[in-house]
């Protein structure tokens, strides 16, 4: 009996804590969605109930913002950045793990050290570089600095440790060249690693703010994060419209995540079984 009570109490505690954590992570999201249905004044007053202003807010958002262009810009940058980052950084991660050389570890550590330099310190030199290259106000300037990502290289190297060397040996015996091994053996085997990296890189690129802000100069090239920032910084921001913008801006990352959730979890647990 006491045992039963103890078990019930511990279950209560567990679920209570889990419930609290779930609430803490879900509430901001819920508030954002409900905010999109309320007027700005109601949001300021702290209303957390569904309102009747959804269509008004959506209308206002689409009249104030050139949504198709802005989302196209964001998507273009995010997809291009993701594909290129995965291609370049996975090759680097593969190379670091597979090929031995005298300075491999030293080079690798030096690369990891770059993770510790805050972006703000690199911003102005990078900006001058892009200026000299004539790339200011282009999407390619947004994408380029993200391609060689030390974190993604690190992630791929870690995962490559689980890539069986027998597979590579067998492929060599079959007469495959190095690039063929990478493309036709490594990539398919590591697909859940790619999926997990895809989600991480896509989200980072989609939500990227500071660098696009610095390098993009015109209304035609702006991304959704910049547009939301501009809407929210008005003297009297229309929070309903801002909420519609944030909801719409969240959808693509949400879709990518749900679409790749299974692979993501697998990737996080380790690719190769």
């Amino acid at each position, binding site marked *: 009996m006491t045992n039963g009570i103890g078990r019930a109490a511990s279950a209560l505690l567990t679920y209570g804590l889990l419930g609290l954590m779930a609430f803490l992570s879900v509430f901001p999201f819920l508030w954002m969605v409900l905010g999109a249905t309320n007027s700005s004044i109601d949001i300021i007053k702290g209303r957390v109930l569904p309102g009747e202003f959804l269509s008004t807010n959506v209308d206002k958002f689409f009249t104030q913002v050139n949504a198709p262009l802005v989302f196209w810009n964001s998507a273009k940058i995010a997809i291009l950045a993701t594909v290129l980052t995965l291609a370049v950084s996975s090759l680097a991660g593969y190379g670091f793990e597979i090929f031995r050389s005298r300075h491999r570890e030293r080079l690798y550590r030096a690369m990891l050290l770059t993770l510790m330099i805050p972006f703000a310190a690199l911003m102005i030199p990078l900006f001058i570089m892009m200026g000299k290259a004539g790339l200011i106000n282009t999407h390619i300037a947004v994408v380029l600095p993200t391609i060689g990502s030390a974190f993604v290289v690190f992630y791929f190297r870690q995962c490559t440790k689980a890539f069986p060397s027998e597979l590579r040996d067998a492929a060599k015996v079959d007469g495959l060249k190095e690039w063929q091994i990478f493309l036709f053996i490594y990539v398919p085997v590591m697909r859940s690693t790619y999926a997990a990296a895809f989600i991480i890189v896509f989200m980072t690129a989609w939500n990227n703010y500071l660098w696009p802000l610095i390098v993009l100069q*015109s209304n035609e090239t702006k991304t959704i994060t910049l547009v939301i920032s*501009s809407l929210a910084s008005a003297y009297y921001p229309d929070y309903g419209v801002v909420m519609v913008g944030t909801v719409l801006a969240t959808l693509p990352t949400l879709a990518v995540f749900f679409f790749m959730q299974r692979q993501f979890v697998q990737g996080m647990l380790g690719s190769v079984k």
Partner: protein
Amino acid sequence: MDNLARAYLPRIAGLALASVSFLAVTAAEAKEITIWCWDPNFNVAIMKEAGARYTKTHPDVTFNVVDFAKTDVEQKLQTGLASGTADALPDIVLIEDYGAQKYLQSFPGAFAPLSGTVDYSGFAPYKVEVMTVDGQVYGMPFDSGVTGLYYRKDYLEQAGFKPEDMQNLTWDRFIEIGQQVEEKTGKKMMGLDPNDAGLVRIIMQSAGQWYFDKDGKTNVTGNPALKAALETVGKIMSANIYKPAAGWSDWVGTFTSGDVATVVTGVWITGTVKAQPDQAGKWGVAPIPKLSIDGATQASNLGGSSWYVLESSAEKAEAIDFLNEIYGKDIDFYQKILQDRGAVGSLLAARGGAAYEQADPFFGGEKVWQNFSDWLAKVPSVNYGVFTNEADTAVTAQLPALTQGMPVDDVLKAIDAEVSAQIQ
């Protein structure tokens, strides 16, 4: 395997081709003036109106108004100027008055001087002071934050005060009235955000002083106006006639919800006050209360910004002519932006136009714009200096100590120490 490679290669080639199209640079057309500013419903909309007016008489000049958040404009301007990459900058940029000296002094030669072209005697003197460095005037004065005391006639009447009683107040009298208002109506006198030094700044400038003197030296410990301002805010807090607000939206909520009897702030709040149709006819506007020290006035300013032309601009001559033609002379333009956007410019002659002459039924038929225009000309000129934001942070940090009863002289010393530390 080779088949697979053949299947993949065209895709890779396609990708490479696709990325070339991302290189598309937006080519600058001849005589297109690019402008950076913030707030799509205010500055951006106003600049588009100004541009449209200029294009009517100068069809060869078009405008590209790009909107970013205010902090984003500052960030981009800072990066662009620091990198020395000229094509990374717009032709005209909006800068908040409090930050103007910082840019003008940190980047000498980056902004085009307009003295000689623009007749600055037509503008509110305090706005011109903001953009003057070594006798040269840069920039075109734009919106003003001339302050007023917005009050609820109904609440004050309930407490036994008529509009006449609100006209020539001292801050001590204001607090007395506040106590009676609370006694009779249960409403607090004003909303106050303890993390916002805005009220301190308003009161200080109303007596012609700032955190810095005319030479830019820190002016904190020996500053009678700052001392009196802090004392006043301390008294308001200890008399407990305020409704505490956490942040801007909350502060706005104190008066839109009808919880407080007065609002002391810049004229740009008028639109928000009027956004509550159920409160029509219940509001009045008076000049702000004054301090009881030398140089005290009933006119002050909160916020406001101005336009600056970049020296590196390829369209510099057109940009200057545009600002001078529209913002420097077009009285009709000022009526339009007042009517449509509630923007009060700094050109004194604008008061002669129809919109400024109009009585506002929302304020019980008062000619509020004429009043604001009167006060605008009287705002004392001060030097906002390079470090206003740093000084503001120091004041905000010390406000809690003030409410806990620390002597004002000690608070001033603490602020001075913090400002000095921040500046070095």
